[in-house]
C-alpha cells in the first residue's frame, strides 16, 4: 500500500485506540467525575464523615428559616426519596422551593445532611416572564421543570 494509505490507517487506528482508552478511563473514574449524588443514591449507599455532594430539588413546603435568621432547613428530593438538609449561610438568588440545588456537606447517621455550601441549579429552559406567566395561567406549567430536572 502507498505511504499515504498507511498513514491514514495509522491515524485512524491511533484515534480508535485513544477513544477506547479514554472510554475505559472515564468509566473507571465514574464516581469521581460525577458531581453529586441523588437522595436515592445516598440512602442506598450512605457515606459518613467524608464531604460529599448531594443534589436534587428543594421539596415543596419544606423550607423553614430559623429564628436566628441565618440558619435554614429544607428537604432535598429526587421525587422518590428525600433527605433533610441543614444550612447556615447565604443562599443563591435562584434558591426556592421546586428549584434544583447541589449541596456539599457531611451526612450524619441520624439521617441529616449538614451543608457547607448550597448552589442553585437551573434547567435549560429560557423564556420571557410573560410566556412563563401564560403557561402557569393555562395550567401547563410544571414547577419542578420540564426537562433536566426529571433526570434526578
Amino acid at each position, binding site marked *: 500500500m502507498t505511504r*499515504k494509505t498507511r498513514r491514514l490507517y495509522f*491515524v485512524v487506528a491511533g*484515534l480508535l485506540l485513544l477513544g477506547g482508552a479514554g472510554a475505559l478511563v472515564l468509566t473507571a473514574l465514574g464516581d469521581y467525575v*460525577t*458531581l453529586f449524588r441523588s437522595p436515592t443514591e445516598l440512602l442506598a449507599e450512605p457515606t459518613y464523615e467524608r464531604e460529599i455532594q448531594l443534589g436534587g430539588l428543594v421539596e415543596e413546603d419544606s423550607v423553614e428559616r430559623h429564628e436566628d435568621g441565618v440558619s435554614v432547613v429544607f428537604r432535598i428530593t429526587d421525587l422518590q426519596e428525600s433527605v433533610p438538609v441543614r444550612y447556615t449561610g447565604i443562599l443563591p438568588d*435562584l434558591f426556592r422551593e421546586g428549584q434544583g440545588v*447541589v449541596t456539599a456537606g457531611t451526612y450524619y447517621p441520624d439521617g441529616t445532611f449538614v451543608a457547607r455550601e448550597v448552589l442553585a441549579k*437551573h434547567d*435549560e429552559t429560557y423564556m420571557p*416572564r410573560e410566556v412563563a406567566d401564560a403557561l402557569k395561567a393555562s395550567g401547563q406549567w410544571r414547577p419542578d421543570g420540564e426537562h433536566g430536572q426529571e433526570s434526578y
Partner: protein
Amino acid sequence: MHRFANPARFLRIANALLPWLTVGTVACLGIGLYMALFASPPDYQQGETVRIMYVHVPSAWMALFIYVFIAIASACSLIWRHPLADVAAKAASPIGAGFAFLTLVTGSLWGEPMWGTWWVWDARLTSMLVLFFLYLGHMALMGAFEEQSRGYRAAAVLALVGVINIPIIKFSVDWWSTLHQPASVIRLDGPTIDPSMLWPLLIMGLGFKLFFATLLIVRMKSELMAARVRALSLAQLRNA
C-alpha cells in the same frame, strides 16, 4: 480538495471572499448585539444575566468548532501532507484559544450570580478547561521547534489526541451529574429557548463564525507570506 492545495489559488479565492466576510461579520455582530442587549427580554428565572448567554454560548460553540477544524486540518497534514493544512491549523489556534478562555470567564461571570459559585469541578467545566489547555499546548508546540515542520507535526498529533475531548464536552451534561444544565439548542426534542431569545443567540453565533472565517483568512495570508519571506531571506543569504 486538491484544487485548493495550490496556495496561489487559495489566496485568489480568499482575497475574493474577504470583503464579503468582513461585511457579513460586522452586520451579524451589529444586529446580534442590538438584539442581545436591547431587543430581547430578560429571562423569567435568570433575569438580565441571561444576556451573558449571547456571548458565552457563541464563544463555546466557536471553541469547539475551531478545535474540530484544527483536528481535521491536522489529519490532512499527517495523512495527505496537504500544504495548506498546517498553515490553517496555526492560524486558527489562537482564535480558538481566545474563545475557550472567553467561554470560561463569561461562564464564571454568569455562574456566580445564578449558581452561587465562580467555579465547580463538574464534567462540563472541567472538560472545557482541558480544551483551553489543549489549545495552549497546540500553540506552544507550533512555536517550539527550530525546524518548523517538526513543530507542525507534533502539534497535529496533539490536536488529534485531544479530539476525544470534544464529544466529552458536548455530552458531559448527559453522561454525568453536573451543575451545568443540559443542552438547550442542539438536542433531539428541539430547542428549549423561546424564539425571542433563540434568534439573538443564532445571529450572534453566525457573527462569531464569520468573524472566525475572516480572521482565519487574514492570518493564513500572513503565514503564507512569512513562509515566502523565510524562503527569500534564505536564498538571498546563499547568493550573498
